[in-house]
């Protein structure tokens, strides 16, 4: 490969570029590589399937190319089958290609362009309709604003809230249809109105649930056996069925949402974790035109990168811990776990004493004091649930986990606290439940919990959040302001509150059938209150945790709450007799008497089928079969995982094989060219200049071929191409 420039006797050989260059540079290799890249079967297949999605209203066809034999082989394929507008060349070249194709085919003209216009208009119309429909979804403009200012995490909270509103509306519908309407329509007792005001009713009844509320459809005691009294269609049976339907519906919806989230985030997200390159190359949204939105997007990208860097640093720090440090860390963690358990135990004791105190009989006190004592358990529970999660948050910062693990650990402890305190409270309630009409009592307690939860949220916003903001704005240098700092919207704790209130609804559903209605109204009010808090008082968080694993936890916690509600209800229905003075199940030994009566009235075969279905002889084999099916799914999943790993390795290996072979091929091509080359008449513009900035196709080879189309004097190129093909 030495220079052959020879300047003897006044004639100079014309030399081409390649013969002057002495090394096989990457650039010219790339040219050759990408030429043959486009001939590979995989590229051709991809282009063919791509054309099926392309707009077919244009002129290109797979016209016979025998008319133009001087077209290079693969340029032939591409030039005649690929739509012109998809060619990665400048406009001038595209028009030349188009003119060339015009020579080949006749233009179809107006009809095709009209069809294409119509197709594009239809697509645009579809998009606009979709956009209008999504704007019809309630509160979507609010969510958009919130996402713009605070990011995806806070928006996810409001989306979760909206989902709970939908769920509760659905439950309202079911309960209204099966419980409320039949009772109202078939009311046997004519003078028993929906709302009766008597002598000593007062506004406080609204908070405590006594008085006029006690006699209204809100509580269990209102419902009775009405005039609808067929064997298999009576009010008690509808009541039971309504409750069961509601619980099953909730179970289905929550499980579905949990599973979908689990699939998306855990199964796909962790394995195919190509985050960094996506973030760098696809991070910026090119549609952004507003400077504020641009700033926010930049800060989010920066935060995500910082999050990744922090996780990396944490992992490095973890890898460098010595044995002594590990021992110390584990000791510290054990101590802190013990501290958490002590705190939880203390909280439960407090709740027990509060329950006992509120159930003790009091007389002769002021009305307000009575109400306060009645509200003591909810107050204590709410206070405990307000302070302890923050304590847990501070504790977990000492445990030296990664940020995501810290947040999840705090979440797990907080949800355990919330659900366990609720469970404890219910347990203590049932310990002395042998009063008359104990169902109403229980319903009242649940009602009080729900109302107080709403009051706590209200007070939190107007008596804590706003004053804090006012303080930080007006006196930013005072010690109190510096202690409290700027307010952030703590997503995990707010979601926990939502989960808690939904659990209370599910638990109290049977004894207070109007709870879903109350819950719907309450959730809508909470939406607006929280919106005010976020938009007026909070600033966007500077640090963010990886919210995807937490969102799976949120849905799982909702499921836990539902399971707890189901277990509570089931044990209640089995253990305790329905009270004999109120409710639709008066007179039956258990609640399920009504179903037994209905089943008894069915024809013989149906009865025996039902009895068989609920006997052990059927249930046990079903359970065994389910275990077998689950085992088979699990082993298939493991085999699939191994296959995926193997395929990934194979992919990487075959790609590097391909590149290696291409490089070899390129080298041998170049060697061939040097042996076959005539010393003259080679135009220097054969390859185009690889560093032309305008044409990306310089790296792809298209430009060189179109240049050949233009240059009829490039005869040797034809020969060379033939040689290529001969290879």
């Amino acid at each position: 490969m030495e220079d052959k420039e020879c300047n003897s006797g006044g004639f100079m050989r014309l030399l081409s570029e390649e013969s002057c260059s002495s090394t096989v540079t990457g650039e010219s290799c790339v040219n050759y590589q990408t030429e043959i890249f486009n001939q590979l079967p995989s590229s051709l297949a991809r282009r063919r399937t791509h054309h099926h999605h392309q707009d077919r209203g244009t002129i290109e066809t797979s016209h016979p190319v025998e008319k133009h034999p001087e077209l290079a082989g693969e340029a032939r394929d591409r030039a005649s089958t690929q739509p012109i507008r998809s060619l990665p060349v400048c406009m001038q070249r595209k028009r030349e290609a188009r003119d060339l194709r015009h020579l080949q085919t006749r233009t179809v003209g107006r009809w095709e362009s009209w069809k294409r216009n119509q197709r594009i208009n239809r697509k645009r119309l579809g998009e606009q309709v979709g956009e209008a429909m999504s704007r019809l979804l309630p509160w979507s403009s609010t969510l958009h604003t919130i996402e713009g200012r605070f990011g995806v995490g806070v928006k996810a909270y409001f989306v979760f809230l909206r989902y709970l509103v939908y769920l509760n509306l659905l439950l309202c519908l079911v309960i209204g249809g099966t419980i409320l309407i039949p009772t109202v329509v078939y009311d046997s007792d004519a003078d028993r109105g929906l709302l009766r005001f008597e002598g000593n009713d007062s506004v406080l009844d609204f908070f405590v649930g006594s008085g006029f509320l006690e006699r209204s459809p809100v509580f269990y005691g209102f419902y009775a056996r009405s005039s609808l009294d067929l064997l298999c269609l009576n009010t008690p049976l509808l009541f039971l069925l309504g409750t069961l339907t509601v619980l099953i519906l909730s179970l289905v919806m929550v499980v579905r949402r949990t599973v979908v989230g689990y699939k998306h985030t855990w199964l796909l997200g962790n394995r195919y974790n190509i985050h960094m390159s996506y973030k760098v190359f696809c991070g910026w949204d090119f549609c952004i035109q507003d400077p504020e939105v641009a700033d926010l997007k930049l800060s989010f990208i920066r935060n995500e990168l910082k999050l990744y860097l922090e996780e990396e640093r944490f992992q490095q720090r973890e890898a460098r811990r010595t044995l002594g440090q590990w021992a110390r860390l584990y000791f510290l963690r054990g101590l802190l776990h013990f501290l958490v358990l002590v705190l939880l135990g203390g909280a439960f004791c407090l709740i027990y004493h509060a329950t006992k105190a509120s159930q003790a009989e009091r007389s002769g006190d002021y009305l307000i004091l009575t109400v306060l004592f009645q509200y003591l358990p909810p107050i204590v529970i709410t206070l405990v649930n307000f302070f302890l999660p923050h304590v847990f948050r501070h504790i977990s910062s000492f445990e030296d986990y990664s940020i995501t693990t810290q947040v999840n650990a705090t979440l797990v402890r907080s949800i355990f606290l919330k659900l366990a305190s609720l469970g404890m409270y219910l347990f203590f309630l049932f310990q002395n439940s042998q009063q008359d009409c104990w169902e109403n009592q229980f319903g009242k307690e649940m009602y009080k919990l729900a109302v107080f939860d709403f009051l706590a949220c209200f007070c939190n916003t107007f008596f804590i959040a706003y004053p804090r903001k006012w303080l930080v704005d007006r006196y930013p240098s005072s010690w109190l302001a510096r202690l409290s700092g700027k307010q952030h919207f703590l997503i995990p704790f707010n979601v926990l509150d939502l989960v808690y209130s939904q659990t209370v609804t599910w638990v109290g559903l049977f004894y207070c059938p109007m709870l879903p209605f109350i819950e719907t109204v309450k959730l809508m009010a909470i939406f607006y209150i929280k919106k005010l808090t976020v938009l007026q008082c909070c600033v966007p968080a500077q640090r963010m945790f990886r919210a995807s694993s937490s969102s799976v936890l949120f849905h799982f916690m909702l499921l836990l709450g539902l399971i707890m509600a189901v277990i509570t209800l089931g044990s209640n229905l089995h253990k305790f007799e329905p009270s004999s003075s109120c409710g639709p199940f008066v007179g039956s030994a258990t609640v399920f008497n009504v179903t037994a009566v209905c089943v008894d009235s069915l024809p013989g075969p149906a009865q025996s089928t039902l009895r068989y279905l609920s006997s052990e002889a059927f249930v046990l084999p079903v359970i065994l079969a389910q275990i077998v099916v689950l085992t088979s799914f699990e082993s298939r999943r493991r085999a699939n995982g191994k296959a995926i790993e193997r395929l990934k390795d194979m992919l990487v290996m075959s790609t590097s094989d391909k590149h290696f072979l291409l490089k070899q091929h390129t080298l041998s091509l170049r060697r061939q060219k040097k042996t076959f080359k005539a010393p003259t008449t080679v135009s220097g513009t054969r390859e185009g200049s690889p560093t032309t900035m305008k044409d990306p196709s310089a790296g792809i080879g298209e430009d060189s071929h179109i240049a050949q189309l233009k240059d009829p004097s490039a005869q040797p190129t034809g020969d060379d191409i033939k040689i290529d093909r001969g290879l």
Partner: protein
Amino acid sequence: MGNKQTIFTDEQLDAYQDCTFFTRKEILRLHGRYHELAPHLVPMDYTNEPDVTIPLALIVSMPELNENPFRNRIVESFSEDGAGNLSFNDFVDMFSVLSETAPRELKAIYAFKIYDFNVDNFLCKEDLEKTLNKLTREELSPEEVTLVCEKAIEEADLDGDSKLSFADFENMITRAPDFLSTFHIRI
């Protein structure tokens, strides 16, 4: 088909329609936008294909491009002379590639060009570092930038030469779920 316009001949409009992803109306609208960027430079009558280019500084002042950290590179990639001066052909070409209907492969080709700052047909570490600095407005420290770039290259590089060729880039970008939705400009 509407009122007779005198900016382009019918044949020119047909050619534009075939060579880009725009309809006739959109091309006329684009010409309006091009004209209002430099009304004294750009003639209203394009029937004889005047050779007019608008400099980079005016193009990147468009609201669609103004907030984009890569606006200079985008305009340079589509300009004939590489310095960012766009003729109307280049202007239409640019927005055609960045429109919603352009196919993924075409966008991948131009995305590669845009991110290739030193125009050597490879995305080397320096290219990635410049991309990242533009993306974060230089708020990350140099070590952090290096760490992120190394991880990005390690994820996408298939042939082990510690830089990304077009094949590596295309392979990575076809698996990105939101490349098509982020890499488009609506005009």
